[in-house]
């Protein structure tokens, strides 16, 4: 489900007014609201992963960007990963491709299918993520690693021994996701459905 973001005061006032009217005049809405009220107590505001307090409602208004905040979600729920799979399936048929047995097909068939997957997934990836090489040098170039280099972003391979600084050859530039924004989930949504079955009527 969606993350619980604090609403600005003006929105809450407007929403309270709306709820009042609808509870009074819309029996179905009143029943649903009653049900929600009983079924789930509001969870406490969760701290962000680095331990800072949750964002204040004012945050959005100070932001320069006119775009809304991307969905932020607690790590480990898996919804984000499912959503990404669903996105790559929707735009580039990735799940279809990986689920099919490739062995019995000719390279020409694989090539034709790969074009569909590549074009769609590439477009989706570019629209939702910003991916850049970890190292700017060309592969094959000699690079120096000073003491205290980040072992997360650079992996030593080959004859690994001794103390930094190291001199070596860049074999792979690495990739870093500078940004990943997934669509925000609204309404009833089951992240486990990567692609709905399609039934054509008529």
């Amino acid at each position, binding site marked *: 489900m969606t993350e619980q973001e604090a609403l*600005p005061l*003006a*929105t809450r006032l*407007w929403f309270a007014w709306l709820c009042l009217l609808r509870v009074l005049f819309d029996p179905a809405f009143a029943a649903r609201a009653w049900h929600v009220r009983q079924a789930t107590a509001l969870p406490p505001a969760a701290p962000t992963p680095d331990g800072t307090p949750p964002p204040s409602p004012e945050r*959005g*208004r100070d932001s320069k*960007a*006119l*775009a*809304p905040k991307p969905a932020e979600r607690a790590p480990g729920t898996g919804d984000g990963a499912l*959503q990404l799979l*669903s996105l790559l399936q*929707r735009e580039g*048929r990735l799940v*279809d*491709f990986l*689920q*099919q047995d*490739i062995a019995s*097909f000719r390279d*020409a*068939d*694989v*090539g*034709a*299918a790969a*074009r*569909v*997957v590549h*074009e769609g997934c590439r477009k989706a990836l570019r629209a939702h993520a910003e991916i850049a090489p970890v190292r700017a040098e060309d592969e094959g170039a000699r690079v120096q690693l000073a003491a205290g280099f980040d072992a997360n972003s650079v992996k030593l391979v080959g004859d690994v021994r001794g103390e930094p600084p190291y001199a070596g050859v860049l074999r792979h530039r690495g990739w870093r996701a500078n940004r990943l924004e997934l*669509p*925000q*989930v*609204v*309404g*009833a*949504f089951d992240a486990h459905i990567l692609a*709905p079955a*399609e039934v054509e009527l008529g």
Partner: protein
Amino acid sequence: MSRFAIGIDLGTTHCALAAASLEGDHRPEVLGVPQLVARGQLEARPLLPSFLYFAHDSEGAQALPWDPERRIAVGAYARARGVDAPARVIASAKSWLSHPTVDRRAGILPLGAPEDIEKISPVEASWRYLEHMAEAFDSLHGGGDAALARQDVVVTVPASFDAAARELTVEAAVAAGIEKLTLLEEPQAALYAWVLAMGDAWRKQVRPGDVVLVVDVGGGTTDFSAIHAVEKDGALELVRVAVGDHILLGGDNMDLALAHAVGRKLEAEGKVLDRLQQASLVHACRAAKERLLGDATIDSVPIAVAARGSALLGATARTELTRDEALRTIVEGFFPVVRSDARPTTRARTGLTQLGLPYASDPAVTRHLATFLARQAAALGAPPEGTRRSLLHPTAVLFNGGVMKAEPLRARLVETLNGWLAADGAQPARVLEGADLDFAVARGACAYALVRRGRGLRIRGGTARAYYVGIESAVPAVPGLEPPVSAMCVAPFGMEEGTEASLPPHELGVVVGEPVRFRFFGSSVRRDDPAGTLLEQWNSDELDELPPIEVTLPADGRREGDVVPVRLRSQVTEVGTLLLEAEPLRPLKVDERWRVELSVRGES
């Protein structure tokens, strides 16, 4: 007090919104519009596809953060559903809004919708798009005195929209709650955006005497305008001197034509595509077109169309689109080199038309342009003594619309235009570079909202047409002959916002208590007729017949069935619409007048 200046591009295929804070740096920024991109998935994108989807009951609500109960979806998801459930989706509402022979306030869309859908009018569809953008804006800025409804809002319309289509656009905006509204023509918005992008440097590129031709080819429509730069009291002034006809021809037609060509190749190989595959073929062709026309080093682009089932391998049809095919289909098909006296053919074409909308029957943008320039040859007044001028002579070209991003199309258009100009003894026109073609209209509309507050240069122009009421002569009926009609000018060409035309001397008789209709005409070339001019005859290409106008005099104080002599008074409102009122010669009370309805359903 407004806190933002807002420009909205209400397009045939896409909408966009740009906003500038009046407290900050006044820089128009394009808004990321939150919209459903798939079921239950919301994303902010700068373009809002102009599609509206009526969800079936089984699908439940199409929740938005600001309305969990919404039953319709607007934007990218609606467009996607247009492929797999087309009868539930409205597309091209704007073309219906300017359709002269349907009742544009009646629930007619989607065409052929199933019974569970309560159809809506073209006006309401436009209203829903504006409403979505307003709600999106408010969800980011908190509503209240920052609510979009309370800001200075400029909504763009094609320059070729007639008075009725403009009024219907205003109705849609008012229904969406917009209080402070102004209309602006899209080509003018493109020029404002270019001026904004150039900064002060624009004055070096446009000089007194220049005639800027704005060529706007969007997804669904093609629109031409000419803007004249003149020196007045030592300062540069821009005056829009001519607009073209409404042409339903755009990038979508080009993609369809390519898909048609590629589909034939697949058929020749025995691969038959179903309707959904056809739609993905059109997408693939659009992407291939952009690559081929955007990069001269690419010789061909592979096109692969997947089958609909979950099997991809072995079920994907593959072919390719070569550079030669793309150039032949798009450049030669839509931008052929033609002479300046070439005119669009009216032969019906297959593959480019869809039931209901009056699509252009000739796909050649160059022939439509030749027609525009020839019709407007006298837009700057008569040529100097002893010279001949068969065309309006632009000195500069500003491109707008996504289609014109392709360099080969720009080059072909400029080459063709300059050929005509050379043959007519004029200097070649140059291209005004540096325009952003996707968001120029929204940005330019926002810039215009700022101009109206006194920041920057304003393009003048007034109404793009003169308007006439048809008066039937009282002659004995002759079988097979229509009674002769004369046309009385009620609103002259170039009336500016907030002005009123003098009252014409001729009277019309209106029957009390029943709606009375008059034939109505517009002219984009007769620029010197003052209000009251009576035309006994005219050339068929001078006046276009518009949907009739209608006035109903209430019976209070008069006897039903009496004929009351009235005169028609016209004014252009601050919003930018034409207001016609019938004023009785013998009023029963002070300032007695009745509003004349412009957009009455035509006789179809």
